[in-house]
């Protein structure tokens, strides 16, 4: 594919809205294990709002679309993950300022900024069993792929694979933040809910690129 232009980004948010609507119950159940069961609701609502806002734009640029999506998400779903994903989108938007299409290099910049934004806002460390544990390998993989000059669809697919592995690895960690932290050792063996959302993001993006 020729990278993500405004049409592809619009299509990406349409697809994310669908996917999070479909995953609603699964995410509720997952967050319910060591959390408050709201993740399915907030992600479905938040990405639904992001899609609506992006779809309503008249003269979009990638930067503006990502910013609009982030702002809509922050407004519609001010939960931990809603706010973090919004922060990621807003920071990622700034990182692709001016670009008309997001190729591998721009996408790598987007994901690095996304990760950094989440790290800043959430004050978590890699290994704390949060969404950062998946965002970090995504960003690192994208950066490596960009250095190697990989195509966007190949790069995203590698990032997806890394993300899925990282998600699996969150099972071995003990939660240090948010509602899950109260469960301490009991969180071991359980896949982190927020990290699952990050995998859905990169997977959906990779699928869009592959289509």
């Amino acid at each position, binding site marked *: 594919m020729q990278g993500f232009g405004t049409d592809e980004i619009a299509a990406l948010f349409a697809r994310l809205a669908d996917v999070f609507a479909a995953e609603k119950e699964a995410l509720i159940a997952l967050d319910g294990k060591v959390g*408050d069961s709201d993740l399915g*609701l907030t992600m479905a609502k938040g990405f639904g709002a992001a899609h609506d806002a992006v779809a309503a734009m008249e003269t979009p640029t990638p930067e503006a679309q990502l910013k609009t999506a982030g702002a809509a998400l*922050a407004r519609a779903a001010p939960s931990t993950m809603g*706010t973090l994903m919004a922060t990621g989108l807003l920071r990622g938007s700034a990182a692709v300022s001016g670009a008309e299409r997001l190729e591998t290099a721009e996408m790598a910049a987007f994901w690095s900024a996304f990760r950094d934004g989440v790290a800043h806002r*959430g004050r978590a460390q890699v290994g704390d069993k949060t969404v950062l544990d998946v965002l970090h390998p995504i960003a690192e993989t994208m950066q490596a792929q960009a250095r190697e000059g990989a195509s966007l669809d190949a790069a995203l697919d590698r990032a997806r694979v890394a993300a899925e592995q990282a998600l699996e690895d969150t099972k071995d960690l003990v939660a240090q*933040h948010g509602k899950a*932290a109260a469960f301490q050792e*009991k969180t071991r063996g359980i896949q982190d809910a927020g990290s699952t959302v990050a995998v859905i993001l990169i997977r959906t993006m990779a699928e869009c690129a592959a289509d």
Partner: protein
Amino acid sequence: MKKFVNDPENFVDEMLDGIYRAHPEVTHAGDDLRCFVRSKQVPGKVGLVTGGGSGHLPLFLGYVGENMLDGAGVGGVFQSPSSEQILEVTRHVDQGAGVLYLYGNYTGDLMNFDMAGELADLEGIKTATVVGRDDVASSVPGEEHKRRGVAGIFFLYKAAGAAAARMMPLEEVARIAEKASARTRTIGVALSPCIVPEVGKPGFEIGENEMEIGMGIHGEPGISRDALAPADEVVDRMIERILAEQDYTQDKEVAVLVNGLGATPLEELYILYRRTAQRLEAAGAQIRHTFIGEFATSMEMAGASISVLQLDSELEPLIAAGGDTPFFKKLAN
């Protein structure tokens, strides 16, 4: 789900509509019902802003009123308000003396208040932040900064509210709130779960004969799940956690809050208070102020919490001061 609701999506906004209809002394800043403010702000006073998820009435918005708070960002059930909403409230209540954010130590709220504070700063509004972190069950001593904020935040509102009403500057009001926060301990016990309207079923189960000591107000796990014991024994097991962290040899006077989580009858709260008072007095404390009732709920959860604020000569008169909100009234004493 046995609730009086229409479309669960409208739960919060219909509740707010009801509140605004009933209480003309509060209103919303701009069009968003969830930007909850006093109808009249006090010129020159430090603004006090709280916020957090709905489902805890009278927390949070219920403490907006005279001698208490000036505004609240109202989130969805158990959800943080957005940074945009907090910012809108901040703008409305700022009277040139700056704004103190006072809320519970939860990730979502922390992030959104931080974002709002950063944005307010860009607009030239000075903000400061103090978080309630009174739940002793939520982290071990030494890790107090990680603790959740629960019912004890009422004492922060009370102290900071009275301080701000005395026209103290932002730094002073923040210092007092921080002191109240550092001196407040809460421990809760839950007997039944609660239902988020949009979810429609309980988020967890508690066996017919079980209680969970230390459970959080969103159902976060506690420190022990046991067979329900007689009331005095329940208090004994709870209060130990507080007594272990407060020493009444110097500052003897305390304020006590026995809080119902929603479904527990007031009768039972007084039975719990009775034992709480016995135990505190036996430990050398002198109960100077008592608050009993529903101050911070979890919808229809059955259960209670006990909060103790260890007073000093600065905090005592601030707790003694009167307060007047639609949900909380206290005559000065």
